[in-house]
């Protein structure tokens, strides 16, 4: 009945969720789907926890993803994936960047950052891709394309979007001089081990 595909992107304000969301939405549009997205603007952007939501299919109504519905949950920071874990469907895929960003609540001593985050991630997600996208991006020459590396890993789960369509979307969304870099970043991410 519900053939809508839903994706949740999580991270910390300023990490580049917006670009990832834009590429994904463009790709879905090029593939001929109806698309809706929702992004966080304003107050929550100042280093707070943020999510972006994308839904596509034949006809999409709500721009918001329901709990337990997402095909993929992608997180640019390791524990942010846990914050939004309940959006993921039981056989959904979690793509998680191993980066750690310590919240001020932890530095000021009023909260604790889970030490065994990787273990918790493994327990929480049946299908998990856990990778150091920042390192991969750095090796490709620009740490800023970590989000596109992750997008590549995410793309493996979205069979209705072909590599050609992804490439076309990347071309439209990034500045000309960064196109090649981002396409390589995407392809590298797509080759990341599908499970750890």
């Amino acid at each position: 009945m519900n053939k809508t595909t839903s994706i949740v992107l999580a991270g910390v304000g300023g990490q580049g969720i917006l670009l990832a969301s834009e590429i994904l939405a463009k790709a879905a549009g090029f593939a001929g789907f109806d698309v809706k997205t929702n992004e966080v603007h304003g107050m929550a952007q100042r280093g707070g926890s943020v999510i972006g939501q994308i839904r596509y299919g034949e006809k999409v109504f709500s721009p918001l993803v329901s709990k337990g519905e997402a095909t993929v949950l992608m997180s640019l920071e390791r524990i942010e994936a846990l914050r939004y874990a309940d959006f993921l469907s039981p056989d959904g895929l979690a793509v998680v960047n191993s980066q750690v960003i310590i919240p001020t609540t932890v530095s000021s001593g009023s909260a604790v950052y889970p030490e065994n985050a990787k273990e918790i991630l493994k327990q929480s997600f049946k299908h998990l891709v856990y990778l150091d996208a920042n390192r991969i991006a750095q090796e490709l020459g620009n740490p800023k394309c970590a989000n596109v590396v992750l997008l590549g890993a995410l793309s493996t789960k979205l069979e209705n979007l072909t590599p050609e369509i992804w490439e076309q979307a990347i071309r439209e969304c990034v500045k000309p001089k960064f196109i090649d870099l981002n396409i390589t970043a995407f392809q590298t991410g797509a080759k990341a081990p599908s499970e750890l």
Partner: protein
Amino acid sequence: MKQLLSGNEALARGMYEGGVTLAVGYPGTPSTEILENCAKHYKDAFRCEWAPNEKVALEVAAGAAMAGARACVTMKHVGLNVAADPLLSIAYTGTPGALVVIVADDPGMHSSQNEQDSRHYARLAKVPVLEPADSAEARDFLKKAFEISETYRTPVILRTSTRVSHSRSLVELGERQMPDREIGFQKDPKNCVLIPAFARQRRLVVEERLQQIQADNSDKWGINRIEKGSEKLGIVTEGIAYQYVKEVFPEASVLKLGCAWPLPEKLIREFADSVEKVLVVEEVEDFTEVNMKAAGIACEGKKYVPNIGELSADVLRASKAKMEGTEYQPCASCQNMADAPLPNRPPTLCAGCPHRGIFYALKKFDVDVVGDIGCYSLGVQPPLSALDTIICMGTGFSMAHGMAQSGQKRKVVGVLGDSTFFHSGITGLLNIAWNKANCTVIVLDNRITAMTGHQDNPGTGQTLMGEASDAADIAAIGKACGMKNIAEFDPLNFEETTAILKKSTESDEPWLLISKSPCVLIMKERVGNVRSIDPEKCKNCRVCVKTGCPAIECTDKNKPTINPLSCNGCSLCNQVCKFGAISE
């Protein structure tokens, strides 16, 4: 080809296609990007301006519409409180050109201090309110609003919301069409001058106009639509709530209202008669439900649908279960959340933010700090915990005044930002000088409207369209208001800041302080060189952590370290470290 546009981009597009010649507004989430997109894409087609506040913005737009132009004004919901005065009276005269007030509500208070429902203003002002449910409708309804405004000589409110404004969906673009008339004010005192004798006449016109609009809203406009489904349940809904209804009640008959006020009574009655029972699904207040009940149309609504917070398909599933008397299992299928408690990650002042300097220094004084709304609201979070009240724009000065005059012993300090100063701080300052309120008030002048994403304001020396302009001088304004004691200081210089705070708060006269240092996000370079902490010299006293800088990271086990990618080199940590452990 269809384009993926956010609701706000689509509204900007609607202004372009609809032949607007002047768009005005004051920033405020979730409305801000409407005018930003006008300036980005259409500034060659029409003029767009930020105003110092919403009242001014609405009056500027009204002036253009009086001259026969199509004009739009944009603001967030609380902005309409500021602009309510002109709205309620321009509603009497109406304008020959179109006047559309775009107001963006924020159900769930993602970035706002309250959750007011702007539809009430439509009823109060006796003007229609249109509510799009996605980007294509945002563009279409705006163009419809121009027509309605001109046909009935009435201002029209277009109400959007966070999820309409900040969601993207596909829109088929159209051409720009200008109204076929020359722009120029036609003198017409009986209809444009609200002295009581004329206003009483207009009062009658307003009532007739509303009745006509109400009738036509049922029959003529084609902005409300019925989607026939099962006869067992009929749902009346509007705005973004429609999208959730379609997901959760796919079988139900739906009446989607594009204009809920004035209530299209005839249409709703027909719809209600065609189904066994009627449920009203609307976000926030029971506005339409109450109007329907007043019209004698049986329905239920807030009995099942929450009136607090925003709706979603998940929220509606719970409402549906309640209505059907079943147990709602929230996401029964989804994976168990990890048991480990997650640390909160609230938004914080950026690394290098000049506001941090003043708040850290203020902590050393026994004062009450009357705050205001802007990035500096983030100074409320621990460890700074620097603000004692935050209410609405302008209160940083005027409430400090009142507290100082209350007879209380403790000294009062009021703070607000540069954009807020121009918005509604100047009148408060004038009052402080005039009535000699013994308080210290501080303008946190970071040379930009930061919180809403860096818009120009009268102090930045540039307009929304990028034209150079003369920057308003805050100290000179203070002087002109009658302030005798005015001082400027660098908030990232801890010693200087502490000294001036001491001097002003120990004085028995009003003081205006201007904290001058630009927002780090608009600076092309770092404030200074990246700092680092020498672990040998560090005694783990954590004074630096108390500045609340997100670049300084530590856990309960390790000593603080500075993340070189985040550090902006403001040197505040360096200045407060007693052991000389921090250096470039």
